[in-house]
């Protein structure tokens, strides 16, 4: 068993354990704590897979952003000392059925794929050949430059240098999403202000 496999097993088990604990525990803030464990382990899995950028983004957005907001919201709005969610048996049954269906789907999809020689086929499909090796800056998680250039539509690994064709980047979708988020923020600020005026 290599070191990667040991760490993968460790973090995968932690992620699963955290996810189960989120469902089992009934206090909201404890759920948030288990969610940190689960999401943090998934970030660690990303780091292990050499996707540093995705791992750091996972930490920043989900753990550092969303979960902090969640706990902050609970702290500001809860009426009692510890907010609880008591799930009824009906909800339990429904959730179990949905979860099992999802599990079957995932297992079915996973077993339907022929995993032999995946890497070679992936390399062939994305045109990752020796001629574009300068673009492959580092296999050890140094993906940032590639991600940035791909965002701008610069993909020498797809053979753009030969065909002279520029690939469409993700800059425009990215900008549209960011403007959308800005609108949402302005709207939220407006709603919060209007509410405060009425009460005072």
């Amino acid at each position, binding site marked *: 068993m290599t070191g990667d496999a040991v760490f993968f097993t460790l973090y995968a088990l932690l992620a699963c354990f955290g996810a189960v604990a989120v469902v089992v525990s009934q206090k909201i803030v404890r759920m948030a704590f288990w969610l940190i464990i689960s999401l943090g382990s998934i970030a660690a899995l990303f780091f292990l897979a050499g996707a540093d950028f995705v791992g750091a983004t996972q930490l*920043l957005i989900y753990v*550092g952003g969303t979960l902090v907001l969640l*706990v902050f919201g609970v*702290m500001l709005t809860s009426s009692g000392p*510890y907010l609880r969610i008591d799930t009824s048996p009906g909800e339990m049954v429904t959730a179990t059925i949905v979860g099992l269906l999802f599990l079957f789907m995932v297992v079915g999809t996973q077993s339907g794929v022929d995993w032999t020689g995946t890497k070679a086929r992936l390399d062939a499909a994305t045109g990752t050949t020796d001629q574009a090796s*300068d673009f492959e800056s580092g296999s050890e998680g140094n993906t940032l430059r590639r991600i940035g250039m791909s965002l701008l539509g610069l993909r020498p690994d797809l053979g753009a240098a030969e065909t*002279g064709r520029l690939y469409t980047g993700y800059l425009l979708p990215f900008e549209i999403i960011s403007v959308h988020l800005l609108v949402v923020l302005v709207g939220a600020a407006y709603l919060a202000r209007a509410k405060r005026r009425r009460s005072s």
Partner: protein
Amino acid sequence: MFLTLASQSLAELLESYVPEGWQYVGAGLIHMALLFAVFSLCPFFFIWMERKVAGRIQDRLGPTRVGGRFGWLQSLADGVKLIQKEDLCPPAADSMLFRSAPYIVCMSSFSAFVVLPFSKGWVAVAADCGLFIMLAIMSLEVFGIILAGYSSASKWSLFGGMREAAQMVSYEIPMAICALIPVVAAGSLNLGEIGDMQSGGIWNWFVFHDPFTFLAFFVYFVVATASCKRAPFDLAEAESELVGGFHTEYSGMRWSFFFMGEYASMFAVCGIASILFLGGWNTGISGVDSALTGLRDQDGALSYLAGVIGVGVFGIKAALGVFMQVWLRWTVPRIRIDQVITVCLKYLVPISCFLFLGAIVWPLMLHAGLGGRTTWNEPLGRRVADAIHSDPPVTPSKDTDTATEETNADLNDAEPAAETELDRESVSAAPLRNTVILNDASEVSQ
């Protein structure tokens, strides 16, 4: 991926001493031990420094007895005292969260050290997006504080935790924007590369790169002080209003974990400041810097010596930053919580946005003034197309020595600060060729 020590990685160094396949485990353990030593000694030293500086500012002597004349073992005595204290947990508290909160604070500020380079190549994980990872990890610290405040079942703690959450989440925004300004100047998020670019002369430091980075340094420092919840921004633990804030109910070692986390993250943010703005491990004297670069290319002990000097320079710069924060704490009065939030959201965020825009426009304007090609007079798409067609990809040279020389030449050529920017400009003009150079540099540093 792993640290290079004396121009070869620690794993290679261990190869001849340990069984096959275990060198990475050994290297990982040594890195962990070294980082943990740094992490534990930082608070040890800074707490002593804080007490001495506070004493001097208040016209006292501070600790004088423990460990000789200057009381430099005072922190050890404090630590022993704290270990002996009873580990209390209030009966109404959510004991699991209450007990685990200090570890979250401690772990998040400790993990930030993993990607922080202490000297050229002396970094546990030389990640390409090191700064991003560091900011992401340090943003987790607030979670432990919120959990501590919430799970203590005390009003002081709850209010302290809420203030702290509001403050730290708000100050993350200008902090990230200010950290991006030197990144724009450098064109890299790799902390090692950013540090290397500032070698040779104090005028190469990014703080003197352009007016915007100069102002950004001061904004960053204010924001970093606030994000470490230091006075004058320590409303979350304001003794006169909230007793101890989020850590009111804590005692003994768990209480001290919060402070280890606080002092370690002070060192971490000052370390980021010294790498991003103050040249990192470069001395700022061009002669000394080139001598050190020469020393680094030597084999064995000499290269190691250059690394140690780099660590010293970096440590002094970061410790001076921490000293500034201590100095501020004991001389500036605390401001109210609404003023803290106002300062951040109404002043620091717009200022840092303005500086960020300025830092982006500055090289373009400068380049346009010198008659070069910029995005103002030529669309980006055409430049990219030109770059693809005119510059054939250079095959990456496997000879690391020539690559190092090439990179060093590249960096040293850009002596006036403005020319560094032009160099960066040519990166976007010829992405393929420059990527090769930078990639080789990053390969060398790993």
